[in-house]
């Protein structure tokens, strides 16, 4: 009876399928009388690029939270598309984390995301209340209402990293200028056969991230698609670093590296933030990126040659006038909001509040219980040494910035919002975590050290954090133009061609809306200064 057998098998498969699909779905039972306001709730949250370990880490927080987590995610390059589709089609998610450049204002106006004023309670949500009451947040209200919660990095945790062993072998102590940098790279190539700089072209977040230090040193900028690179000179004139001479110089320099084989020429096909295929086996002398990653690369370098090591290097040209700190703490970069279709807004806020509190942040940074720290949990003083003097000394007078703390484990500390009256005060007194074993072992690649050395890359001005409506019209076109022309310049065969390519680039940039863009920000600056 083969037909019947087939049908039965088919039905069994379908049933099994449905079980696997629906078994893990959200359960919403009536709240039992246990005093836990979130009994039976499952919070569906969308967070970007959550890998296995992060997922385990987050699930380990469920005990403290009192509700379960259902974590949705996507790859970096699909992030914005996914979020856009989710909001546009009213998917039932409680908390979504997305880039600030997405059309959240339109969503707010169309009633697709929840306004938060009726949910935020200063007693229950000290941190959320603090940051959304900060001065600069005022510019982000829509109709006088709050619609999102900001996330970001703390200042800059990215910097220039070089091969310490090569520096020692060449007898170089510190590189002070870009010309010196070029010479050292050439020597490294001749004697050790390594690329001077390992480059990648990440399609999405930071194009040319690995060359940030070069842009900064020449006073150029504008290569991070979601960041604003405005410069305000002494007269109050706003200009965009994307078309500045500093950028042209930086690109010319990179082109020189390219023509002299000091850069991996296949960088356009490498879509990750850092070209690990070159960094892991030690085929490059330097790169720009999170030095904390260098900890990982060092262990792989040791497999090739135990003498090889990456070390962090101070910012080149940081004292000079034209140095332009680019990363701006990624401006706001990402925001979290609650879609209108959510059924658990209180749980969403509780979740956000917890992961930005002292305990939550330390749990997230520490990682997976039993794997990255002892399974018994934290001792009374935790796994980390707190660096309590705040970072005033490191960052100078950055006071009103919106560089707030976020969800990811790349943010190594927290803001003590419950200890200070205003957000600005609390921000000045950020607390940084430093692994006790790093402190004990004297590992130079520890967080405190890194933030110290990378601080020059973290800049801010009054308009760099504000998204004006004009941006959503022109930003993607401007970025496309940059992507096209900057790489043309870098890969130009003859440096004499660069001038012409640059001029075409500037003309096109202006044509697709660059002038309009700058004008809008100029007007805005004029009103606030």
């Amino acid at each position: 009876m083969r037909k019947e057998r087939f049908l039965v098998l088919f039905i069994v498969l379908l049933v099994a399928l449905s079980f696997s699909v629906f078994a893990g779905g959200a359960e919403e039972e009536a709240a039992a009388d246990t005093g836990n306001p979130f009994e039976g709730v499952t919070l569906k949250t969308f967070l970007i690029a959550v890998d296995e370990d992060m997922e385990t880490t987050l699930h380990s927080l469920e005990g403290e939270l009192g509700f379960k987590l259902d974590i949705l995610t996507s790859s970096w390059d699909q992030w914005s598309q996914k979020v856009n589709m989710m909001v546009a089609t009213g998917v039932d998610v409680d908390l979504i984390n997305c880039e600030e450049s997405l059309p959240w204002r339109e969503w707010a106006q169309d009633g697709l995301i929840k306004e938060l004023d009726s949910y935020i309670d200063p007693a229950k949500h000290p941190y959320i209340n603090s940051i959304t009451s900060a001065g600069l947040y005022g510019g982000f209200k829509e109709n006088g209402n709050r619609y999102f919660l900001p996330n970001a990095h703390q200042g800059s945790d990215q910097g220039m990293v070089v091969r310490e062993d090569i520096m020692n072998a060449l007898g170089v102590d510190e590189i002070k200028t870009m010309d010196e940098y070029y010479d050292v790279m050439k020597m490294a190539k001749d004697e050790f056969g390594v690329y001077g700089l390992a480059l990648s072209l990440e399609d999405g977040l930071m194009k040319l991230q690995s060359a940030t230090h070069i842009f900064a040193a020449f006073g150029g900028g504008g290569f991070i698609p979601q960041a604003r690179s405005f410069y305000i000179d002494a007269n109050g004139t706003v200009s965009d670093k994307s078309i500045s001479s500093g950028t042209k110089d930086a690109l010319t320099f990179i082109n020189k590296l390219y023509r002299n084989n000091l850069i991996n020429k296949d960088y356009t096909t490498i879509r990750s933030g850092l070209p690990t295929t070159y960094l892991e086996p030690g085929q490059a002398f330097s790169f720009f990126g999170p030095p904390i990653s260098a900890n990982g690369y060092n262990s792989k370098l040791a497999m090739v040659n135990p003498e090889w090591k990456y070390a962090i290097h101070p910012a080149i040209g940081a004292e000079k006038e034209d140095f332009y700190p680019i990363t701006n703490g990624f401006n706001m970069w990402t925001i979290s909001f609650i879609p209108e279709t959510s059924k658990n807004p209180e749980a969403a806020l509780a979740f956000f509040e917890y992961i930005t509190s002292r305990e939550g942040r330390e749990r997230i940074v520490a990682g997976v219980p039993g794997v990255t720290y002892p399974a018994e949990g934290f001792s009374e003083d935790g796994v980390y040494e707190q660096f309590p003097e705040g970072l005033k000394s490191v960052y100078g007078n950055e006071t009103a910035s919106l560089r707030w703390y976020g969800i990811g484990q790349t943010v190594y500390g927290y803001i003590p919002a419950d200890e200070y009256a205003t957000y600005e005060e609390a921000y000045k007194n950020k607390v940084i975590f430093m692994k006790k074993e790093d402190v004990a072992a004297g590992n130079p690649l520890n967080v405190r050290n890194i933030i110290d050395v990378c601080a020059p890359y973290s800049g801010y001005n009054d308009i760099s954090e504000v998204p004006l409506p004009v941006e959503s019209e022109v930003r993607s076109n401007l970025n496309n133009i940059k992507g096209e022309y900057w790489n043309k310049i870098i890969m130009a065969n003859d440096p004499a061609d660069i001038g012409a390519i640059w001029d075409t680039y500037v003309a096109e940039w202006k044509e697709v809306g660059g002038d309009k863009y700058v004008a809008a920000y100029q007007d805005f600056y004029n009103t606030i200064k």
Partner: protein
Amino acid sequence: MIGIVILWYVVFAYIPMFGLIVSFQKFNFSKGYFKSEFIGLTNFKLLFSDKYFRQALKNTFVISGLRILFQFPAPIIFALILNEIRSKKYRSVVQTVTYIPHFFSWIIMSGLVMMILSPDRGLVNLLLEKMGQPQIHFLSSVKWFRTVIVTTDLLKEIGWNSIIFIAAIAGINHTLYESATIDGANRRQLLWHVTIPSIAPVISIMFILYVGNVFGQGFDQLFNLYNPVVFEKGDILATYIIRTLREQPNLGVQAAAGFINSLICLAFLLFSNWLVRRSGQESIY
């Protein structure tokens, strides 16, 4: 029995088509298809005013044209060549090996392609270096990108696509060959006057199918191989849609782009069908 099949077609093929109405709307999901604002051709106008859309459109045509020109004849020629191989063993080895790349998804294939064409570490450039030529950065070069795309797809599918033609050749009546040889035909004449005309019907049907499909294809390959430097030559409609989904709150615009894509596919199918019918061969419609 036919009922279930029809049901599937209705649910999964025809109803989604109904969603095309969204191309004419300023779509808001909570309002649904019927209450969203109808804005006629505004979405389309918006699309055509976008330089990158026009570029993607042009690239779709050009790349598809190249494929028709080069990728369509290649398996035919390959089948003819295979037919001429004397040694059965060698022939089956070639066949088996060339079938393999077809089973690789483009994700795997693009990993391999990137490795082989890499400027400093890839074998192709190594060869060029040995021959004293300068390096070529195939995947970042506006000049070479389309060539790479067409060539790699050709190599990937040549074995598989030739199966039909091999089968057709094998089905040719041998007496035709015999009588032609008796009449004094040499190898080349046999090929030209017996083999090719006999498989002409198969070629024409495959041509129609190929042209009808070629416009919708290529997404996988391009999506995995392209990068911002070569957008001007390599971005096609399908990849444009996926890429621009990030910033467009009005889904109607994307839907409009998809609509245009499908219309072009259809137009070319009908056109090639007509063309083939004109030339006297069998056609589908």
